[in-house]
């Protein structure tokens, strides 16, 4: 997970670690379920080391001194990094080239039938789509997580359509001399 | 040039794309133009035949005659007539011509005639119009008055026995100087002469009964009379002022049997029109009824087609057609159909019209009317083109107004929703449910169907009533004119029925096309083809039934309006029979299109709607 996500969540106001985790869970919905509980704290520690956040411990009298009790806040450097991140236009890109080359190589070497590779991949993507779609159907309308799930579903759909194009293409290549 | 070609090609494409609809449109407009032609011809015949005949034949303003004293047998004096011709008010005159009473025998039938001796050359006043053959040629040929000839079955070229001698009929003619047979006024002594209500039998001269009119050479007239003293004389006078004819006659009321009898033209006119008024009313009413029906059928079809055009207009505009081009294409399409329909209608009307005109000529005592006048051709063509322009105008205006996108998206005319009808139909059997809902989608078309059937049935009922009365009259008083009136009634009735049949088929097709989509859905939801076919058929039968009921109530009213005499209402079982007949006929006419529509495969329609 991107460190900047956690940084940005702190931009509104200083928060406890557990508050950050709750906010993430809410935004991600079922997608966030796989997230390790300690992941947020690992990231926070790393950010602290980089001088992007500072911590403030509560009054020592009541402190049992667990990580949970600390309040995290952005430093000036952290503020700057968040602003920078928001203007970035990076976009997660699926590595289609790898799969494409896998098909080409398999066909050239005669190691495997590209069509059966496509087929296996398709089943896998369909299974993922089924999961995402079921998760989406379980979400109430308008939740943050529903929007994320819709994005996942649409991407998987696009991937499946590309696989269909692969299948068509390799079918013609095979039938051609 | 290229533009014209494009317009013609686009119009032709669209017509060929839907040949069934184009054919239906052609049929409907042709039916309308045929009917209109008939109506106009009828109107022309019924218009004012006497006046036309009077003008064409230089008809007299006053007919003056003298005859022998029926009691004493004193001979008539033609000098009385000559003197009358010299009066100040007289502008022109002809005669005196001798008139002999005699008999004519033809085909075993004998009838009394009054034979008027006329010179071969045309007279200044009263030039009878020859409808068949030719006028007197100075020889032995005779000319017979048209109604009389018709009654006795005489044609030009026939040989008849006149006063015991065989003579050839040179021609048949009509005149405005005398009421047509058998209501001819008497120039010689005719029965019945009554004194104190008792017929006078012992006359000094021969007495004729319901004489016909025959024109013969002057010398033949003289020789036809048993005695020159038996001759009567007639003169035809034209006044400076035709409107003064009645006053002229009133000032010279005969004081004795030897004085001239004067008959002013308004008197003849009244006689003629009194007798023919019914026939005229029948023809005019028939023409109106047919006109209304024709408009109804075109309205149904053009209305249905206009909805279709909106989408097409959108397509044309989407590919870059200007509103002007769109209008031109639509206009070209309709003008083509309208012109073909006008031509077909004129030909069909022209072929049918003699059935009316031939009978009406004798019937009305008028000159033979040409079946198709230039005015008729112009009117029919103008009306057909008018339909084309109106059918173009509305979508064209819409095209100019609506955006291309809106026109493309606007599928068909959205159906109407009649809530209570839908709720009511839920309680009815499936076929009736379908019928009521199909009909409910297009209230205006249903109204037109009802109106059309009301008009037809009114016409039929009125014709039946008139016919029944005619038959009663004929039984007591055989009159050839009444028989001919019956024939005209029959022609009108047949035309009414034919047009109503075309209307029904057109309305059914329009409905079937209109509901093909909801029909497919209804069948997908489980309606059987039989239920759907019955529903589509019933959707026409229900309004027809309503129309028939209204019509059988309206028929007697119509008849009452046409014939002010005592109305003999047709028996109730007739009306029931007409209503039942209409239901059976409409069922029969709609069953084929409805069954075809109900059996059409469902799947393509449901798929096609996706496009």
């Amino acid at each position: 997970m991107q460190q900047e996500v956690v940084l940005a969540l702190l931009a509104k106001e200083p928060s406890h670690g557990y508050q950050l985790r709750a906010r993430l869970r809410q935004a991600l919905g079922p997608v966030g379920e796989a997230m390790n509980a300690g992941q947020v704290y690992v990231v926070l520690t790393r950010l602290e080391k980089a001088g992007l956040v500072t911590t403030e411990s509560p009054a020592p009298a009541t402190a049992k001194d667990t990580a949970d009790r600390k309040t995290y806040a952005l430093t000036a450097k952290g503020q700057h990094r968040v602003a920078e991140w928001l203007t970035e236009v990076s976009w997660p890109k699926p590595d289609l080239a790898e799969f494409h080359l896998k098909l080409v190589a398999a066909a050239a070497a005669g190691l495997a039938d590209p069509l059966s590779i496509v087929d296996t991949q398709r089943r896998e993507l369909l299974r993922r789509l089924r999961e995402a779609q079921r998760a989406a159907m379980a979400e109430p309308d308008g939740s943050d997580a529903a929007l994320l799930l819709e994005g996942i579903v649409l991407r998987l759909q696009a991937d499946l359509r590309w696989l269909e194009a692969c299948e068509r293409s390799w079918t013609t290549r095979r039938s051609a001399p | 040039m290229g533009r014209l070609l494009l317009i013609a090609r686009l119009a032709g494409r669209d017509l060929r794309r839907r040949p069934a609809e184009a054919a239906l449109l052609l049929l409907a407009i042709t039916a309308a133009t045929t009917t209109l032609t008939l109506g106009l011809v009828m109107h022309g015949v019924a218009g004012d035949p006497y006046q036309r005949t009077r003008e064409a034949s230089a008809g007299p303003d006053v007919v003056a005659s003298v005859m022998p004293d029926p009691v004493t047998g004193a001979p008539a004096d033609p000098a009385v007539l000559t003197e009358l011709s010299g009066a100040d008010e007289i502008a022109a005159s002809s005669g005196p011509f001798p008139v002999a009473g005699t008999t004519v025998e033809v085909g075993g039938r004998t009838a009394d005639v009054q034979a008027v001796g006329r010179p071969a050359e045309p007279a200044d006043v009263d030039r009878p119009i020859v409808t068949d053959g030719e006028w007197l040629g100075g020889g032995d040929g005779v000319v017979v008055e048209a109604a009389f000839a018709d009654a006795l079955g005489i044609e030009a070229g026939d040989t008849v026995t006149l006063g015991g001698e065989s003579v050839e009929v040179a021609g048949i003619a009509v005149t405005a100087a005398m009421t047509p047979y058998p209501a001819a006024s008497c120039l010689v002594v005719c029965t019945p002469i009554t004194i104190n209500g008792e017929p006078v039998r012992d006359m000094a001269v021969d007495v004729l009964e319901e004489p016909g009119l025959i024109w013969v050479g002057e010398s033949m007239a003289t020789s036809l009379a048993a005695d020159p003293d038996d001759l009567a004389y007639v003169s035809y006078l034209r006044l400076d002022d035709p409107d003064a004819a009645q006053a002229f006659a009133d000032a010279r009321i005969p004081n004795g049997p030897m004085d001239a009898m004067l008959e002013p033209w308004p008197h003849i006119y009244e006689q003629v029109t009194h007798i023919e008024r019914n026939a005229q009313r029948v023809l005019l009413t028939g023409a109106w009824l047919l006109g209304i029906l024709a408009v109804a059928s075109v309205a149904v079809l053009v209305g249905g087609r206009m909805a279709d055009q909106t989408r097409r207009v959108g397509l044309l505009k989407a590919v870059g057609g200007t509103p002007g081009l769109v209008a031109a294409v639509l206009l070209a399409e309709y003008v083509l159909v309208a012109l073909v329909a006008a031509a077909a209608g004129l030909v069909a009307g022209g072929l049918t019209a003699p059935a009316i005109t031939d009978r009406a000529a004798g019937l009305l005592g008028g000159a033979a009317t040409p079946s198709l006048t230039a005015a008729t051709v112009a009117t029919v063509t103008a009306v057909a083109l008018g339909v084309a322009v109106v059918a173009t105008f509305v979508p064209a205006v819409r095209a100019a107004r609506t955006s291309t996108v809106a026109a493309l998206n606007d599928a068909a005319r959205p159906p109407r929703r009649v809530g209570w009808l839908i709720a009511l139909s839920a309680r009815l059997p499936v076929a009736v449910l379908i019928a009521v809902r199909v009909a409910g989608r297009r209230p205006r078309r249903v109204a037109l169907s009802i109106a059309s059937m009301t008009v037809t049935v009114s016409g039929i009922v009125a014709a039946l009533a008139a016919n029944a009365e005619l038959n009663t009259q004929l039984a007591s008083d055989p009159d050839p004119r009444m028989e001919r009136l019956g024939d005209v009634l029959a022609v009108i009735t047949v035309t009414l029925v034919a047009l109503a049949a075309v209307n029904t088929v057109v309305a059914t097709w329009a409905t079937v096309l209109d509901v093909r989509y909801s029909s497919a859905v209804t069948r997908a939801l489980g309606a059987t083809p039989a239920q759907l076919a019955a529903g589509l058929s019933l959707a026409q039968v229900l309004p027809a039934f309503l129309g028939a009921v209204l019509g059988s109530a309206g028929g007697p009213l119509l008849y009452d309006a046409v014939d002010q005499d005592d109305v003999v209402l047709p028996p109730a079982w007739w009306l029931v029979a007409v209503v039942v007949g209409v239901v059976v006929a409409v069922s029969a006419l709609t069953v084929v299109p409805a069954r075809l529509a109900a059996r059409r495969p469902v799947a393509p329609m449901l798929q096609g709607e996706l496009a």
Partner: protein
Amino acid sequence: MSTTILSTRGLTKTYGDGESLVRAVDGVDLDVAAGETVAVMGPSGCGKSTLLHLVGGLDRPTAGEIHLAGRRVDQLTERTLARLRRTDVGFVFQAFHLMDELTVVENVELPALLAGRSPRAARARATELLRRVGLAAKAAALPTALSGGQRQRVAVARALSNEPVLVLADEPTGNLDSAATLDVLRLFEELHEAGQTLVIVTHDERIAATADRLISMRDGAFVDETRLTGGTSGRLGALAELEG
């Protein structure tokens, strides 16, 4: 093993002849168990809609057999087929095919009326179904006043009017946006959970992925079958690149 609701053997539908012969459906064997949701996927023109029409009795096969609810139906007369469509099958179409002049509730009760139910019973059933698809409040509205997703829910309610043993859906989400698609998918899921047997033809992977079984169709024939049921991987997070 649950009972088989629908079964076809060598189902074939051809159009034209000679050179222009088109095999829209070419020897299809299909078995659908009670309560199963089967999706048939393929590019447009692969014959999936024709297959659906054959199974639902909207069209007749050129060859082959169709058994529906234990009864052979490919030889039935048009009249009996109509009865079959009325009682055993419910259709859902891409274009909804609602009657625009009828209100929502009148649309839904129409199949029951066609089946000869009493107006009262038909209305009661329609109202109940509208409640089930969440549109009870729209009963008196005209379809033109509804969104696409709402219209399709009305169409689904209509398909259920006569409690069919089999619901056939032809591209039910083809005209819908993403949110409306989700709505309809939820509705199908509810039907599925209630034990309704569903056959859906589509080219929408989202519908296909939610079916129990996915059949791929090419040129009129089945080319692949995937059973998608089974435990989930529980790795949704991988989909969002949250790990690694």
